[in-house]
């Protein structure tokens, strides 16, 4: 929300652009440190030093480390969404296969920074975070893409008409999120995550397939 309000038309006043530059530097510096030392292992002081700015400036821009994390994670979404938009028109095959491709894109994307992504999930339950932080949660664009795929499946006779699509979306989303536990329990890489998710999608697809399919 904050980012949208900041995007005003016309020349940017110098104060604002400086503040934006600080923001950018903090986010970039934090992303690098979170990636190498993990979220818990990184302090605001280190982020400041790495960004070459004072700790005070970090705190005038962000209320907490949690808020920086949510900003870092927010910033990652643009390239991910661009990738989905690029792939969507080229999806082929049955509904289950289309879904598999969409989730595979996500796993490959997040696996590059999987430690960071796990911190993001953990932070969703951390209540030392201020309300302003936006931890891991709903990803509306992914859900829209799934809905679109399922609706197409209904049109093709691949998906039952008498089914609550939101329920299927939620099941897929929870299967997706919980698959990441394999990173913790088995140090899974993207390939394993995708294999497991593919099987789960197959099982959910049995649930949404028309009765006589």
């Amino acid at each position, binding site marked *: 929300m904050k980012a949208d309000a900041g995007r005003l038309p016309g020349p940017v006043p110098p104060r604002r652009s400086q503040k934006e530059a600080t923001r950018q530097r903090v986010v970039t510096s934090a992303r690098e440190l979170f990636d190498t030392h993990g979220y818990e292992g990184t302090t605001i002081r280190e982020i400041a030093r790495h960004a070459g700015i004072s700790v005070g400036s970090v705190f005038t821009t962000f209320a907490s480390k949690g808020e920086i994390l949510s900003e870092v994670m927010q910033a990652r979404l643009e390239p991910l969404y661009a990738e989905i938009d690029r792939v969507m028109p080229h999806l082929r095959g049955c509904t289950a296969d289309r879904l598999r491709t969409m989730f595979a894109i996500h796993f490959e994307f997040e696996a590059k920074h999987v430690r960071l992504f796990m911190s993001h999930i953990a932070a969703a339950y*951390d209540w030392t975070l201020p309300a302003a932080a936006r931890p891991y949660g709903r990803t509306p664009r992914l859900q829209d893409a799934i809905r679109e795929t399922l609706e197409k499946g209904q049109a093709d006779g691949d998906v039952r008409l008498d089914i609550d699509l939101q329920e299927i979306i939620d099941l897929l989303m929870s299967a997706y999120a919980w698959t990441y536990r394999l990173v*913790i329990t088995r140090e899974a890489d993207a390939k394993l995550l995708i294999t497991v998710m593919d099987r789960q999608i197959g099982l959910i697809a049995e*649930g949404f397939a028309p009765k006589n399919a």
Partner: protein
Amino acid sequence: MKHISPNQVAVDAPARAPTRRALAKQQTRLKVLAAARRLFSEQGYEGATIRDIAAAAGMSTGAVFANFTDKSDLFREIMHDDMEALTAAMRDAATRGRNVEDALLKIFMAGYTFYKTRLQLARAAFSVSWDKDGGPTLRGMSSSVAFQDLFTEQLTGAVERGELSQESEVKLRSQMLFDTYLSNFPQAIFEGWSLDALQARARDQIRILLAGARRG
């Protein structure tokens, strides 16, 4: 200082009346656990410190450390107790199920009912379970494993009774049922879903996840 689980104590302890010292120690443990449970529920896992817990229990941090190695040890002990109690309650609920679908629904609901009054503790548990260090230990506890096995047992039983087909992919399916059971907690924690709403949702989820196994 080695952590000794209550089970080990039960096995190793000689069969005579506990000494006064052992009793006092046991009481200290219980006091710490009660204080910790309250603070974790009020301030989350990250927010509660050993110092606060000691203060709430009316003792020194040294006394806390004499009984528990660290905060995560303390938290695991609480989760272990809860999960054992919950698994028993779920197993009991499942026996009243009319069929596998109903038994699973009763298991889900036993869990949501159990945590209805301790959602903040559940939230703390999720936080720890996604932690790089705390996660594997919490998920690997014998009580966590037994808890998950409950879902597998239901499906295995249903296959044996002929309710579900032989090719039911029991392992994957029970894992997904377990994940789905957990995945509804955020709705309860953050969106205040009622037990009725959770039940309606869970019923549909179970139906969808079992659909493929029914057709066989």
